[in-house]
């Protein structure tokens, strides 16, 4: 998605009605963020927008990048710096160590990087309302659907390395064990990561 360097563009303040809409859609897409939302976008804060190439846009608060969106993608996706701040609030999968360098060079994430011993896919289990999350092994508590936003963790690492939308549900990934999992994503060191938002 952001393989190329992104030229910094001017930021513009958002109308409060637009800001409310963004806050609402963040809460709808990421219900686990509800208890952090006041910290992420305080009601009185004024959110800014930076236009990115290819009709994408980044939302920024006080110089901190929060979410980005692309016209073609339905959900707002978190900037990795936000994921690092609240990692437990985003559904995640885990790639094995060998796949890390491919993902960090912008390659399509493929199923074998997740189905190998070092990878992690969800292990559905009963959880109390609002108790969705990853177990100690890093397995999410429910299968994730095609089109859902997902954070990519990595074997042996603490921090997430990528975020994007699944092009295949996690149940199908387990079943087939091959094929692309995530085509366009935001990863550590890409143009979005390197973009200055001060």
């Amino acid at each position, binding site marked *: 998605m952001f393989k190329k360097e992104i030229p*910094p563009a001017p930021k513009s303040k958002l109308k409060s009605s637009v800001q409310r809409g963004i806050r609402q859609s963040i809460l709808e897409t990421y219900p686990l963020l509800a*208890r*952090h939302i006041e*910290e992420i976008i305080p009601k009185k804060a004024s959110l800014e927008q930076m236009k990115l190439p290819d009709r994408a846009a980044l939302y920024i608060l006080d110089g901190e990048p929060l979410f980005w969106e692309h016209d073609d993608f339905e959900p707002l996706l978190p900037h990795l*710096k936000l994921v*690092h*701040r*609240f*990692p*437990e609030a985003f559904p995640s999968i885990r790639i*094995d*160590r*060998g796949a*890390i*360098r491919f993902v*960090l060079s912008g390659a399509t994430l493929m199923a074998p990087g997740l189905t190998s*011993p*070092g990878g992690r896919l969800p292990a559905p289990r009963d959880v109390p309302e609002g108790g969705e999350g990853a177990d100690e092994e890093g397995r999410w508590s429910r299968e994730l659907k095609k089109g859902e936003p997902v954070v990519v963790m990595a*074997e*042996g*690492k*603490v*921090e997430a*390395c990528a975020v994007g939308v699944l092009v295949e549900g996690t149940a199908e990934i387990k079943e087939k064990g091959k094929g692309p999992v995530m085509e366009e994503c935001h990863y*550590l*060191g890409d143009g979005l*990561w*390197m973009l*200055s938002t*001060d």
Partner: protein
Amino acid sequence: MMAETQRQEIVTEPQSRRVTYCGVCSLPPEYCEYGGTVKKCQDWLQKNEPALYDTIWSPEALEAATASLSVEAQKRAAKDAQKKAAKAQAAEAKQADKLANSHIVIKRIERNKKKFVTAVIGLEAFGLELKKVAKDLGKKFATGSSVTKTPSGGEEIVVQGDVSDEIEEFLLEKYKEIPEDNIELVDDKKKKKAAAAAAGAAG
């Protein structure tokens, strides 16, 4: 007492985590190995975050990290790292070369009698954002300062007043990557004459 502390722990909401990012390549330091500046990254981390350095680069940590990769994958990773390092080195050399050949001109321009403006030209070659620097200069000298287009299609900063020396000092102090030799101070008093001569020659 005990019960109270416990209750407090329960009601405290988890807060935003603060993650340290590498001062060289900007990634979380555990990912520095995938960039082309590993050696520099390591030096930075050892100096700034020694504890984190140990957890990532200690022999035990490294052994655990490679144990899960097949010999084949380790070889590929090593080759990949070598390539990246060579690429980063070449890019660095190119950038150093570019900087050595880039000049900033601070020009005093007489607008009309005893009224001067100071133009700063060439900052973008050093990766500086003109708008931001213009704002900083305006604040620093409490004067008007803005980015204007030049006839040649580029951009320069124009600061109200005769502040050439002060600007030079400010730039050298704030942006250590600019060598003093690459800043040139010029006086544009004779601009009109030169412009007239040029116009004459053209006509």
